[in-house]
Structure formats: C-alpha cells, structure tokens
C-alpha cells in the first residue's frame, strides 16, 4: 500500500520544489531581464515578486503539500483495517 502511493508524493514534491526554485532563484536570476517590465504590478514586477509574490507562492506550496499529504494519510489510516477484516472471508 505504501509503494503504490509513493509516486504521487514523489512527483508532488518534485513539482512543488521546482516551483519554489523557479520563483526564488529563477525570479531573481532574471530580475533585470524580462521579469522587471512585466505589467502586473504598479512598480517593477521583479521587485514585487521577490518581496511578496514569492512568499505567497511558498505559503501556497507548503499549504498544498500539507493538504494533499494529510488527506492521503487519512485515507491510508482508514483503509488497512477494512482490508484486514475482509481478507480472511473473501
């Protein structure tokens, strides 16, 4: 039961960490290039991204991961007893 769920958490983690990396390191690496003039915020977008946008993304990442993993854990916690009880009869 553990192995079947592993790919999901591995992928989730990889995608989320990649997102964090892009927002922080990527966003700052290109801060002077094409990110600054993006017309999203009143001032230069790269400043907003580094000062606030990235932090909001981090919260989103951590929150999403916690929600998905906790839901999965709850599902796992409930299933094993059912399987065990059903096992001998079937």
């Amino acid at each position, binding site marked *: 039961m553990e192995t079947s769920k*592993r790919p999901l958490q591995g992928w989730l983690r990889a995608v989320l960490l990649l997102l964090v990396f892009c927002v922080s390191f990527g966003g700052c690496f290109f*801060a002077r290039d094409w990110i600054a003039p993006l017309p999203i915020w009143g001032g230069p977008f790269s400043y*907003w991204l*580094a000062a606030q946008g990235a932090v909001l993304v981090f*919260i989103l990442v*951590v929150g999403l991961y*916690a929600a998905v993993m906790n839901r999965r854990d709850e599902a796992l916690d409930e299933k094993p007893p059912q399987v065990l009880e059903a096992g001998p009869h079937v």
Partner: protein
Amino acid sequence: MKSPPKSSKQAPMSDKPAPLQGGLFQNYQLKGFFLLVLGVLAFLGVMAWAEFHGLSRRWIGPIFLFSIVMGCAALGIVCRTTDPEEYYVAGRRIPPFFNGMAAAADWMSAASFISLAGALYLQGFSGSRGEPGGLAYVLGWTGGFCLVALLIAPPLRRMNLYTVPDFFAVRFGGRWPRVIAALAAVVCSFTYVVAQIYGVGLIASRLTGVQFEIGIMLGLGGVLVCSFLGGMRAITWTQVAQYVVMFLTFLIPVSWLAYKQMGNPLAPLVYGQQLGKIAALEDKLMASPQEKQVQRIYLERAQNLQIKLENVELALAQERQSLQERLRVMRQNDMDVSQIVDVSRELANLPKDAATAREKWRKTIQEDLQRAQPLGGMPRHTQAFQGDPDGTPAEQTLFSQSRLNFLALMFCLMVGTAGLPHLLTRYYTSPSVADTRRSVVWSLVFIALVYLSAPALAVLVKFEVMNNLVGSRFDDLPVWILQWAKVDPSLVSVSDVNNDGILQFGEIKLGADLIMLATPELGGLPYVVSGLVAAGGLAAALSTADGLLLTISNSLVRDLHFFERWRKNQSPEQRVIVSKFVLMVVAMLAAFVAALKPSQILPLVTASFSLAASALVPAMVLGIFWKGAQRAGAVAGMLTGLGVTLYYLGVNALGGFSGSDPRWWGIEPVCAGVFGVPAGLLATVLVSAVVGRWPDRFKESPTTPHQI
C-alpha cells in the same frame, strides 16, 4: 524509537472529533490566547494613557523591559517541569496553530525584527556586491520553510525523536554520526545565540539606559528562568506570547505610516504606489547640485586621508602637534570652555599608534568613498544588482558577481533554515505528522505576516526621509534624530557637510538597526510606541535565544558521548536536571562572548546559517531519502561540509594566504555554505557508495524512516 505515529496521534484527537483544517486547539488554550492579546493591548492602552498624563519617558523603557522579562519568568514558573517528555518536546501536544506561532517567534530573531527593515531600506533589492542582502533575507528565510515542510520536518516527527542529532543516531546507528551532528548543532546554534544575546543587550541597554553588559544580564534573566524551569513547554507558551507582542509592534507603526502617507493602513497592499514616487525622488536627488557638492566633499576627505595614509607616523605626529598648538592658543586667549573641551576630546580620540590609525583611517576612507557616490552609496531602491549587464566589461562583471552573491546568500539562508536544530525541534512538539505539516504552514503564515510588511516599511520610511526630512533646516531637525544620535552615533549621524544649513540626503547616515526603532517617531507616534517597538525587538531576540539555548544544552547532554557513560545510571529526570544546569552554563558563556561584541548581528546570523546548511542538511536529506546512505558516508559528509565552510570562513577572516584574493568565484565568506552543501552531499554519496560495495559484515543495517 521508531514506533509508528499512531500512538501519539490518537492522544490529542480522542477528545476532539476529526479536525476540519488544522488541528483545532482546546478551548482553554484559545481562551488563554485571546486573554493574552487583550492583555497586551490593555497594557499598551494603560501605558499610552500614562504617557498622556505625564509619565516620564525615562520610565517607559524600563517598564517595558521589566514586564517582558517578568512575563517570561512567570510563564517559566507556571510551566515548570522535570518530566523529560515535557521538558524536551512539550509533551508533544502543541496544536498546529500555536506551534506555528511559537515557531514563527522562534524563527524571527533580533536580526529579522530589528535589522530586516533597515537592511531593506539601505540595500534596496539586492545590496551591493561585497555585501549582498536586501530581499535575499526575505526570500531565504521564508523559502527555507518549503524545504522544511516538504523534505525534513514530517519524517523527523514520524521518528519520535527528542533532538536533531537523535536522527543521526536512529538512522545511521553507531556513535559518531550523533556526536558530530551534536557538535555541528552546538557550533551553529552557539554562533546564532551570541548574535541574539548581543541584540538583547543592545535593546535592553537602549530601553533602560544601563550599560551594555548589564543589559545582557537583565534580558538573560528572563530567558533563563523561563527555559531553566519549564523547558520546551514553557518556551512554547512564551514564544506564543512573544509572537503576539512582535506582531503588534511591527504592525502598529507600519500601518500608521501607511495611513499617514496613503490614507490606507494596509501597507503591504498599497506601498507599490510609493515606489514610483521614490524613483522620481531618487532621480531628483541624483541630479541635485547640492547633493553633488556633498559627494565632492566626501571624495576630497577620502583623498586627503589617502595621502595621510602614505606616511602614517608623520601625519599622526603633525595632527597631534597642530591640535596641541590650537589648544595652547585657545587657553592663552581664554576661549569658551566648551570649545576647549571639544578640541581636547579630539586630541584624546586621536589613534594611539600608527597601526590603529591606519586601520581607522582605512575604514573612514571606505565610508567616505561610499558617501561620495550618488544616494550615499545606496543602490536605487528597486534596482536588482549592481552594475549593468549591457555596460562596460567592468560593469558586467560587477553585475554578474553581485547577482551571484545574492543567489548564494539566498541559497545559504534557505538550506540553513532546513538545518537549524532549534527550528526543527519545534516541529517535534506536534501531536502527529499531519499536525507537523500543518504547523509548518501556520509558521510560514505567521512569519509572512511580518515579512510581507517589512519591504513596505522600508519603502515608507525611505519616502518619509527623502520627501520630508531631506531639505529641512538644520536648526529645526526632528528631536528623535538628536536623541538617537546621542545614544549611539553609528545609528544616526547628521552633519552639515557643505555648510548650507539645509539637510541633504548625503549628509544623513542611518544605521540598519535604527530604521525599525525610529519608525514610530518618524511617523509622529507617541513615545510609548517606540518603547513598544523596542520591546518587540527584545521579545524577538529573547524568544530565539530561548529555543537556541535549549537546543544547545539538550545536544550537549543527550547526544554527546562524554555524558554517555555516567548517564546510564541516571534516571531521565536526573538527566533533565543536568540539562538545566548545562543550559545555564551555556547561557553564561554566550553572554560572555556577546559582551566582547565580536561582530554585527547580521553577519553572525548568516554565518551560522551557512554552518547549519553545510554540516547537517546533506547527511540528513540523504539519510531520509536514500536507502543507500551509510554511516561512514554520513560522517564523511558532515565533516566535509563543516570543514569546507569553516575553512572558507577562516581563510577569508584571516585575509587569505600570501595576499591573494581568497574568495572563490568572488563569493563572500558569509555565503560559505554554497560550497559546503555540495561538498557534503558529494562526500556522503561517494563514501556511501564505496562502503556500500563492501561485504555485508562491514555494513550497518540502515533504518530508513519508512514511508514519508
């Protein structure tokens, strides 16, 4: 040790049905929390009322200091315990909401609270090449929580540990992984705690006007009683209280300033419109002839000193002679006493010998040269990195090195976050793995509440200074400038360099630590709020020092080998008592080191992040995620990471061998972790791979934390 999480998971949930989102707290905790918030607000109200009715400013500071320290001590007495489960991990029943709050307070140190806004003011987006900073602190100190949440905290919590070195003992077995991890934890936490206690001393001495050393002792008293008696349980609840204080003290002045400037108190949402105005003001200042005049004067001063530096002995002798001559003439002519005192003080302040003179003048030259640049050497606020990617080759190098250092600093802060033991042990106190995940989310939310406002505060203060302060006449400068200058001239200094009686931007120099402390007065708020802000800084420093001291003493007593032999015939309670005394000794030692004023707050903190990142994180992450990681690999990884980082810090501190530039790729020494982390990873992988091919009898059976 490795019991499945169920047993601990059931405990808190038995009296509560399935939690909706986030483990819900018990009723009494919530009630206590609201009482606490109301209490803080009421206290503030009473103080404001008292000031309005004539309470002297001299008393406000000491009252704040006293109430904070007494509050900590009282919580320590209420929560006193010798039960190991309570002392080390607060009984593992702190609900995520409060655990997140405590972690936020634990996390936000004097550096974040006092220096962050100031650093953002001075450094803008990215700081300079030699001093990276600015938003790297915001990004690093929040981004690290993604690593903590996704990679580290849940698996560690699943293993039911007490300290971070415990992980190495459980995962790798043997003695050495744990001992080395404990040493690494002690080294980085100790560096960090020295910075905190330094901050405590700074603020306490400012609040009360006592000496720095006595300030340290006053602040430390509260920490000690709290962590000494109550351990993790008491620390958790003091940290919750301290977060409330910090949050209010940050929010009140920021909102006030935002309301004053833009008619909307929600500073983080609306400060963007000030950025455009600041850019316009910067243009105006850079074009202003008076500013250029001031810059020229600084350049001349630097050049004059440079000439003196060529023959220091002669210049020093000449200067001494001319001052003595002036003094003699003044005495003969019966000049004003205060002038005579000024000159003789100048004479007394002359460097004693050539070596100190050389050092002092070099520093002054650097300062003068910096102030000879446009905007006093500060980068334009929203400009990322120095130099110009499309400019001359020199400008291009400056740009790429400035960017590289910024990214390196961010990397060290992020990875260091994932390795700092005092933060990780906070997540041991959650009731379950699921609650640990929720705790990290709450921590980040609570940290973000302050961190999202910090850039806004920096912008608002900058606008206030550029728009209102610059151009005011020297004879009616605001009172706070003079008051703070009297406390410490390195915090704020103004001098009419070009003698036109009007304050230019180049003539005012603000220290990073002042911005936050002076914000209330800058915004025209009553002095009580200034006291409150200083109290918030004190709370920030104390809460972090609490957690760090506990981590250090626990690592020493639980994890280090030389306690192992005689701890076998001790009961767990006796061990707790030993921990308590070690904690006191460590606190005293840290206070002693802090009293020597080894460095500024921020470099110390950054160095400890580099240490934590390179020593602990590689072996820990590989141990969690790679079944093939071996004991020998972990030991090699930790030693290599720690060694590389310490070497890089040391070599740069000593100035390198044979005069050559000791920096690799121009990376600043505080970012040493950027070399230590890959080195540690590589060493762990290589040695594990080699050992893994040996016959089985040489191998340990690694216990992987199953199913993260």
